[in-house]
């Protein structure tokens, strides 16, 4: 039954719309641990190579857990972390202390996270992570990660300035260093290795069925091998923001027109495979979207920073009728919903535009890089704006005239926007297009504090199966605070290695 030919048939049927779907238990039913012919054996296998996977692998090696193998299905190391923005919340970090901020603490961070988690967060887990934040920081420093000198900021939802940022403002500054340190210390990494299935012995994981030499997203590529895991399998495969089918199943508001800030590999099939073997998922429908996306770039991009100007100094306009349609300063969810109502009659997105005065922001990096990379454009007049984006001119002119009348009065009778930062609109303008993007999955596999994956029947840990990072669920609750994902991943990589060591001794 599990010869390659029958697998291929099943695999082809399971590929949905180019998204690699999980192969459920139909395939695995016949694969008992006892009749597997193992191609290879390692002590610990880590699935995924983002912050969580890289930290887990390096720390597992340092804990003396033996041979460590990291499997990454894509053709690059780093997962979504490599393209992340490089923000890291560390209470009591040296830069913060040098700034004279002495009243922060792990508990202060947890307080903020309880508010954003809306009561559904796992406070004990958050506290454990916050308490080890300085260990995560030290891990970075020891492996050669460079942070911006003197830079420590207060970011959204935090009551203290405690977020530091990597030198180049990319998570790659961290992933490349963790990877290179791991290589030096004997961790083995493999690209293009796709986990097809777990090999279980009851509720204990004993190894993985892996497609070697796989080329995303084609499940017919590569060949199947079996790798035995003597001590542990650590799931660090990230979230599922790029799995359009799954995310719409759990949150029907996330229709397929929504792009995503994540790397293409964030499809979460390993979460589904774990669920098929009994792992308990929580909060799957809690998915963070940003209303600040641009359809003219991939990833998180420049749009967010550009709109930090546009939503204050400019207006958003529906291209079909030339009118404003929302309070540009409302929260994420309110804005996302309003933006996504902009549709052509066939349901396809009619991307709204946001524009503000060019002359007020000459030389601003947010503007110059956006224009350079063609996600924003300079237009010299409302006529040019209307022509370039196919907006009816007369109503557009009327919209701007009415808005300009409200600016000095500091009121927005249409949408009730706070107008304290608004300015009168005068061409030339900087204009960009907007559409929300899916950003982060709060939900995933439920673990105990030691990162042991819980089984959905017994609610007890599944033997030798661990999960860390965005692959897990329930840590952050309703919403995750910015700059805390990297912290969670790095810290849990340290903790999971300690857990496995203690489980080995038990």
């Amino acid at each position, binding site marked *: 039954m599990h010869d390659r030919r029958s697998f291929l048939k099943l695999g082809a049927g399971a590929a949905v719309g180019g998204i690699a779907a999980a192969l459920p238990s139909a395939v695995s039913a016949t694969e008992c641990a006892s009749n597997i012919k193992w191609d290879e054996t390692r002590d610990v296998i880590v699935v995924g190579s983002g912050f969580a996977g890289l930290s887990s692998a390096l720390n597992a090696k340092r804990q003396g857990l033996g041979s460590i193998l990291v499997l990454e299905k894509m053709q*690059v190391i780093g997962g979504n972390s*490599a393209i992340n923005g490089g923000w890291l919340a560390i209470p009591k970090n040296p830069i913060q202390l040098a700034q004279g901020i002495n009243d922060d603490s792990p508990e202060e961070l947890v307080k903020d996270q309880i508010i954003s988690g809306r009561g559904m967060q796992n406070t004990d887990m958050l506290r454990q992570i916050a308490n080890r934040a300085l260990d995560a920081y030290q891990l970075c420093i020891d492996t050669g990660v460079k942070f911006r000198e003197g830079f420590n900021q207060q970011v959204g939802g935090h009551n203290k300035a405690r977020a530091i940022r990597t030198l180049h403002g990319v998570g790659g500054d961290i992933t*490349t260093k963790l990877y*290179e340190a791991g290589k030096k210390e004997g961790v083995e990494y493999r690209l293009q290795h796709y986990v097809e299935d777990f090999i279980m012995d009851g509720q204990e994981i004993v190894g993985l069925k892996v497609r070697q030499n796989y080329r995303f997203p084609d499940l017919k590529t590569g060949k199947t091998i079996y790798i035995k895991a003597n001590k542990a399998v650590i799931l660090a495969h990230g979230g599922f923001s790029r799995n359009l089918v799954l995310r719409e199943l759990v949150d029907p508001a996330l229709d397929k027109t929504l792009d995503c800030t994540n790397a293409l590999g964030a499809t979460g099939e390993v979460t589904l495979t774990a669920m098929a073997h009994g792992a308990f998922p929580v909060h799957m429908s809690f998915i963070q979207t940003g209303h600040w996306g641009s359809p*003219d*770039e*991939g990833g998180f991009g420049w749009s967010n920073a550009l709109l930090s100007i546009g939503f204050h100094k400019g207006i958003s306009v529906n291209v079909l009728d030339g009118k404003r349609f929302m309070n540009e300063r409302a929260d994420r969810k309110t804005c996302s919903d309003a933006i996504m109502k902009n549709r052509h009659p066939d349901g396809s997105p009619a991307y709204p535009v946001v524009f503000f005065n060019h002359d007020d922001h000459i030389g601003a990096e947010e503007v110059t890089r956006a224009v350079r*990379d063609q996600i924003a454009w300079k237009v010299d007049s409302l006529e040019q704006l209307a022509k370039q984006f196919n907006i009816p001119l007369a109503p557009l002119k009327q919209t701007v005239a009415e808005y300009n009348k409200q600016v000095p009065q500091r009121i927005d009778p249409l949408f009730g926007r706070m107008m304290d930062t608004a300015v009168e609109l005068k061409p030339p303008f900087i204009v960009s297009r907007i559409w929300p993007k899916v950003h982060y999955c709060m939900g995933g596999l439920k673990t105990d504090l030691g990162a042991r994956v819980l089984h959905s029947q017994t609610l007890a840990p599944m033997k030798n199966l661990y999960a860390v990072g965005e692959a897990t669920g329930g840590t952050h609750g309703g919403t995750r605070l910015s700059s805390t994902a990297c912290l969670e991943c790095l810290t849990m990589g340290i903790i999971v290695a300690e857990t496995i060591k203690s489980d080995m001794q038990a």
Partner: protein
Amino acid sequence: MMKTLLLTLVVATLFTGAANAGDLVKMKGSTQGRSNHEFIYQDGCKGCHQGSGKQNATDAACVECHGEITSIPVDESKLAIPEAHPHKSLHYNQGASCLACHGEHEKKAPVCAECHRTWFKEM
């Protein structure tokens, strides 16, 4: 020794005024390949594809002649910004497969172009 051969071939290609090194040209039947790899095709597929042509090639085939990613020069005058150096990527550095950006038998957009859409073209 392979490196010397490679350099000789590149120089030869430049002087004969044929297709530019790296251009996609017909190699064998309907299979296309890079003009600077012509000599490899003379020995069949197994020079790059281990076992059989039906199996995906790995980086090993590239590294044997070209060396490791961080040691391979690129024309820096063509970069959108200095930080956009694909062989010293801020996101991946040594952690990128050659195949993430380069295709032998077909044109391919590099992995960077997924986000930075104006910085790189199909190669």
